């Protein structure tokens, strides 16, 4: 029991720890790079002209202003770890960034300004790379390998900024422009402004750049991961729910087992509240013990979870380096609180039971079961109602949190129906089992007679298994949808991309000359370019993708469109844009709506002509034709290149030719198949943590079944001894026991099938859509269900082994004498 609480709490804490660590690392790194900034001047991800900074600072006299150049490099020597390159101007800095303040005072600024590519690195990076001043940190950035001489190690003032300095390489803003090949452009300008100054400045800014509150930038980035983190939390709570069944089961068992003692206590004058208090106090002790154990266990699990969660965040959202996974007291308290609350909740029914039963019935053995049997019907009705309410909430409300709550309600509602369903099922099976003789007649009755405990074990196992089914179906659906989509979209033969941190594709510009070099290769039939960047819009900062591809897109890629693929493409050539499904969902954009982008020619509205399926980024994307882009933007850079091979060309050979042609750059050349595989690798990595959670739920359920059965068998020791005395052989005893648990496992498995299916549908069509904005095709795999059924039966049968062995060791006489 303690173990059950511990596991439940551990899972909650592990996930919370992972989420909190990732969020904190993010917050710290933003704090380190934004400091006391109130506003920022930003442009598209191509940057803003440095002349804007001169205007802001000199002409408009906004002296609390600092130019910033920021980028991410990858350190091959550090296992491809991302390194944040932050370029600052020391003479503008003082008001902004505390944690970097030491950079200005402890190191030789002359060296800082003038060493080409010179960096001050955080202590973490120095330690990992064994780097000292004088060494060179090699990173891949903007498709080139760059050696960054280490000119110093930043010494943080306190623990908090130590974490903020993780993965950071600080350099002079001018040197950073060189390293990131930005020319005369900056990433952004940080400002400390009053509201009046901000209003005034916003009006003066030239086209193509805009003023945003610093918090908006921070929030929108952090918002990206909110849905992901919420989903993880929900899953971790499911583990706790399974644990709750366990606690209920155990406490109820202890009440039933001690009914005599409790009855005597009642007779001796212990009042009802005292009795309830006693039981609840027991539960509290157990919860605290289990909770504390769970905190420790959760911390251990958390170390792994942090890695998985961070990996996913790096893959899908933004680069964050987490090294600090210390357990915040709040996280520990939250987990402990959840454990205690769940325990008390689970103990409420047994406590009530113990308190309200008249003393005389309390000592009677069958009284409790009789009461329980009467409750089965109403309980099922409550469960049905709960599930019904859940379904209504799910349909009526769009909020993610409510949807998750509704999903819980449905699951718990269905679980409450388990006792009634078990009785029905076993009654139905009773006849056919009777054919097996005495054993076949005994087994279902034993299960139904102890329904207050058996059904709890069954319900716990059912919930765990159904979660397994639901999640597995969801992942399989996602994966098959992704594979279909990749087939439809990866139509070119070779892809040339810039390497970027994590699995995300980079938006760094390709070096000049790459396009010509690839196009002119023999064997290359045609090429298409894409440019990915971020621009400001009326919806905030959004992803924009520019393509000059002429390839006709499959109709299957369009979710809603204003016509057939040819008309759509013609419209896009004429100035319309397409948006991805997550974009449409996130910003409530439909075909025919206008999206206003901050272009280099000022704000410009673009009509949406189609919404297309895309699983590339959950924050959504706007797709624009290159000829349109060049009318409104000055940026001519290219982020990626797709090449179509001439018929009859071997792709491997061609890929090698391209690699040779691009020697000296750090560009990645992949054949479409490889790109597909790497996309799937990222996918699998993303769901690693979901899978791990799913397994944990099963483990918790298994422990639940085991303890329930053990309790049951031990309680029945006398009964079984009687049977043995009456001539039941060891073999028959085994068969009886296995049949009983097998029946329980079967019930759990059978109930888990529809519940799992319902969960899968909810996860795929509701939770995923509301969390990430994309539609998945439900992909049923019969094997998932067969496996689930098998797992529940096997788990149940296995759980019977140990109690049986223990029982066999007891001499019949001792067992008989027990009472």
């Amino acid at each position, binding site marked *: 029991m303690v173990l059950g609480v511990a596991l439940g709490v551990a899972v909650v804490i592990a996930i919370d720890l992972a989420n909190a660590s990732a969020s904190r690392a993010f917050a710290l790194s933003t704090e380190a790079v934004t400091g006391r900034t109130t506003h920022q001047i930003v442009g598209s991800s191509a940057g803003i002209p*440095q*002349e804007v*900074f*001169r205007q802001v*600072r*000199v*002409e408009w*006299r906004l*002296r609390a202003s600092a*130019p910033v150049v920021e980028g991410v490099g990858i350190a091959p020597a550090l296992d491809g770890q991302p390194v944040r390159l932050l370029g600052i*101007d*020391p*003479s*503008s800095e*003082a*008001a902004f960034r505390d944690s970097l303040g030491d950079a*200005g*005072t402890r*190191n*030789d*600024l*002359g*060296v800082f*300004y*003038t060493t080409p590519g010179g960096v001050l690195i955080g202590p973490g990076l120095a330690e990992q790379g064994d780097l000292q001043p004088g060494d060179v940190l090699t990173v891949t950035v903007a498709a080139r390998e760059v050696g960054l001489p280490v000119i110093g190690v930043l010494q943080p003032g306190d623990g908090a900024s130590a974490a903020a300095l993780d993965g950071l390489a600080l350099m*002079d*803003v*001018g*040197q950073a*422009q*060189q390293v990131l090949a*930005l*020319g*005369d452009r*900056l990433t952004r300008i940080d400002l400390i402004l009053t509201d009046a100054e901000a209003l005034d400045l916003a009006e003066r800014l030239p086209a193509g750049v805009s003023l945003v509150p610093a918090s908006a930038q921070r929030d929108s980035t952090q918002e990206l991961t909110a849905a992901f983190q919420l989903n993880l939390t929900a899953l971790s709570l499911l583990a706790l729910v399974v644990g709750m069944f366990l606690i209920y089961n155990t406490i109820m068992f202890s009440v039933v087992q001690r009914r005599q003692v409790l009855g005597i206590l009642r007779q001796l004058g212990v009042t009802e509240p005292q009795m309830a208090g006693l039981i609840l106090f027991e539960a509290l002790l157990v919860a605290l013990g289990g909770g504390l154990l769970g905190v420790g266990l959760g911390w251990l699990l958390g170390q792994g979870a942090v890695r998985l969660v961070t990996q996913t965040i790096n893959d899908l959202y933004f680069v964050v380096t987490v090294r600090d996974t210390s357990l915040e007291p709040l996280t520990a308290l939250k987990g402990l609180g959840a454990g205690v609350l769940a325990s008390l909740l689970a103990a409420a029914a047994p406590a009530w039971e113990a308190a309200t039963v008249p003393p005389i019935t309390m000592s009677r053995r069958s009284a409790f079961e009789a009461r329980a049997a009467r409750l089965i019907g109403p309980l099922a009705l409550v469960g049905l109602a709960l599930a019904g309410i859940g379904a209504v909430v799910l349909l009526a409300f769009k909020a993610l949190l409510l949807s998750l709550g509704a999903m819980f309600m449905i699951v718990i509602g269905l679980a409450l129906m388990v006792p009634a369903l078990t009785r029905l099922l076993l009654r139905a099976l009773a006849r056919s089992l009777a054919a097996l003789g005495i054993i076949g007649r005994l087994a279902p009755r034993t299960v139904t007679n102890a329904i207050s405990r058996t059904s709890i074990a069954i319900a716990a196992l059912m919930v765990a298994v159904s979660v397994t089914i639901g999640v597995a179906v969801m992942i399989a659906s996602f994966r098959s949808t992704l594979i279909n989509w990749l087939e439809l979209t990866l139509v070119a033969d070779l892809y040339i991309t810039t390497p970027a941190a994590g699995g995300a594709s980079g938006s760094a510009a390709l070096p000049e000359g790459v396009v010509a070099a690839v196009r002119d290769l023999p064997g290359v039939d045609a090429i298409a370019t894409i440019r990915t960047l971020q621009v400001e819009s009326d919806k905030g900062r959004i992803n924009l993708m520019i393509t000059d591809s002429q390839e006709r897109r499959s109709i299957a890629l369009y979710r809603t469109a204003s016509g057939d693929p040819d008309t759509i493409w013609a419209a896009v050539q004429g100035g319309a844009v397409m948006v991805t499904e997550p974009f449409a969902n996130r910003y409530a954009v439909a075909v025919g709506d206008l999206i206003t982008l901050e272009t280099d020619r000022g704000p410009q509205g673009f009509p949406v002509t189609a919404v297309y399926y895309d699983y590339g980024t959950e924050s959504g994307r706007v797709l624009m034709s290159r000829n349109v882009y060049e009318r409104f933007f000055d940026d001519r850079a290219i982020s990626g290149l797709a090449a179509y091979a001439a018929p009859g060309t071997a792709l491997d050979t061609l890929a090698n030719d391209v690699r040779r042609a691009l020697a000296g750059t750090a560009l990645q050349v992949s054949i479409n198949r490889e790109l597909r595989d790497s996309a799937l690798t990222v996918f699998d990595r993303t769901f690693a943590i979901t899978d791990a959670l799913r397994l944990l739920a099963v483990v918790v359920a298994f422990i639940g079944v085991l303890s329930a059965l053990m309790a049951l068998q031990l309680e029945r020791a006398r009964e079984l001894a009687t049977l043995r005395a009456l001539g039941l052989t060891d073999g028959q005893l085994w068969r009886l026991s296995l049949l009983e648990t097998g029946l329980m496992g079967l019930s759990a498995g059978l109930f888990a099938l529809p519940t799992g299916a319902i969960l899968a549908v909810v996860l795929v069509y509701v939770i995923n859509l509301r969390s990430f904005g994309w539609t998945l095709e439900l992909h049923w795999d019969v094997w998932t269900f067969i496996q689930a059924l098998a797992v529940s039966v096997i788990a149940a049968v296995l759980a019977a082994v140990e109690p049986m062995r223990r029982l066999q060791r007891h001499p019949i006489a001792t067992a008989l004498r027990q009472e």
Partner: protein
Amino acid sequence: MKTWRNLFLGLLILTSSVAGFWWWTRPAEQAALPPLLAAGTSAEGFARALAPREFVFPLDHGPHLDFQTEWWYYTGNLETDDRGDRDDRGDRGARYGYQLTIFRRGLTPGATPADGLRTNQIYFAHFAITDVARGTHRAAERFSRGAGGLAGAQGEPTFAVWLEDWRIEALNADGSAVRLRAQEAGLSLDLELRSAKPVVLQGERGLSPKSSAPGNASYYVSYTRLATTGTLTLDDQTVAVRGESWFDHEWSTSALGPQGQGWDWFSLQLSDGRELMLFQIRNADGSLDQVSGGTLIAADGTTTRLLADDVVLEPLETWTSPRSGATYPIAWRVLIAGHGLDLTVRAQVPAQEMPFAFTYWEGTVAVTGTANDQTVMGFGYLEMTGYLGSMQGVF
């Protein structure tokens, strides 16, 4: 017994909270980057001032990137312009001193890369206004990189030096007339300066040794009397002013010798039409370096070089800065017997310390005394460095 202990404890708590509060609320340090100046940037590769040279103007008013250190120093004494509109206070003849200096520090010799914000030039500037009547001295400091149009200097086509919106721009071709503009919170000036005299080459034809060892010298040119008109603003009160300014332009790579501790430097404009530039280099052991001296500029602009033995500088009074604790001589007797000068130079306001990346005293002074037994008066500026720590390596 107990009462005493409680009293003692109470006092202790009181004192420590007061001390803590003082510490907490102590004036914030200026945004200073001391290593910028003390930076161990080596002087290697930079040219040194070794011998007199030809000067070409306006080119030589501009920057000399082969040298590590350079400054453009404008100081002046002004009074409210009673010919024009009266100022808000209705005062007549209220006196002010001002200083606007832009410093350049080369990190590596030679030109700045043209692209992006990369730079090998750091500019910093000091701006101060002294209100003599009120006894106030307010000062500001700025830093900037010499790139992206943020800060820079040029000799051609016309002379200009700027650090953000603190700007010095020539009004004529040879740079003998300039417009100065600077503003900081509650403090600004906009002045036109026109030189009545030709450019003065200080020291030996513009080469000004700063220690007995060769190479520890600067090139040093001045406009010693610039007629000045314009406006000053102090806390939203703008006053029209007129008066006289002084311009020094100096560049070097290693000025002070190894013994040098600091210097006292005088720029005095006398009522008889003459100007006097005097400096003495104080060594760490308290002695004066033999290169100390100056220049006497006659009313017609002809110059006479003064050597160490020609000048006696005698401190008369001192003032201790409550902020830094440094003690500065704020009144001097200046005796130049060979030219019949016996002057008393006195700070118009004692508290004119510049509390910046390096701390020094720079302020307006009034002159009284005799020239060949005739009464002579005047105003000027006095700069005193090295009273808090050695200026060694700073310049």
